[in-house]
């Protein structure tokens, strides 16, 4: 087996990421690195990460996501997470992971709107 690269798209001053496959550890860590490089390269000040296709999140993936959100913040980009499925929300809370202070929206479209508001545009 081999990990895949998650595509990161640029839209105006934002980056869009839609995670379409089950995340293995390598893919998750590669994504963390790729996203930070892309923020640096493009000067993006907002990122939307869409998790609609993700059907579970364990504590490792939660940590990678939380870390990448904080790292992006350090670089000056706000992150909004969208499309968390009900089953994922339930298991995250039962794991004891609350993703406090993380901006979230129901779907990609609302996520982009939230980013615009947050960025004062």
């Amino acid at each position: 087996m081999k990990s895949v690269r998650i595509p990161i798209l640029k839209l105006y001053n934002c980056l869009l990421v839609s995670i379409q496959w089950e995340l293995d550890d390598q893919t998750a860590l590669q994504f963390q690195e790729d996203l930070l490089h892309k923020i640096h390269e493009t000067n993006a000040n907002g990122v939307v990460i869409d998790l609609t296709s993700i059907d579970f999140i364990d504590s490792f993936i939660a940590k990678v996501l939380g870390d990448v959100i904080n790292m992006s913040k350090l670089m000056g980009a706000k992150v909004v997470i969208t499309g968390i499925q009900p089953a994922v929300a339930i298991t995250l809370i039962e794991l004891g992971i609350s993703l406090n202070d993380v901006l979230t929206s129901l779907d990609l479209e609302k996520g982009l709107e939230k980013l615009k508001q947050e960025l004062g545009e």
Partner: protein
Amino acid sequence: MDIQSCVNIQTEWDIVAARQLGRNVAKELGFGVVDQARITTAISELARNIFIYAHKGRVCIEKMNDKGHAGLRIIAVDSGPGINDIRLAMEDGYSTSGGLGAGLPGVKRLMDEFQIVSSQGKGTEITAVKWIR
């Protein structure tokens, strides 16, 4: 009789294989999507703990039938270093590896039954069961 299938855990990819096996069995048994996510997450936590702390071991998934009541049992076994202080390891946020420390207490909350047997230098065996409601 209970039917068991196992995945040997040696690489990160085996963690993926173990949780896919668990999800498939959970689906077959008729668990709903939320329970499928709970079971998948629990297997992922236990398999990763084996990979990180014991380097190798095995995760087995068992179909259970108790007087017509169906369930799924996860058995995670390794011959690694064992857990020094189980009470501490079960505390939210306790981690010896810079992790979130959410794995063991999380699995306990995600599943209906949970049991750890561990002895230092000998290894760890964790069993967790989910029943269909």
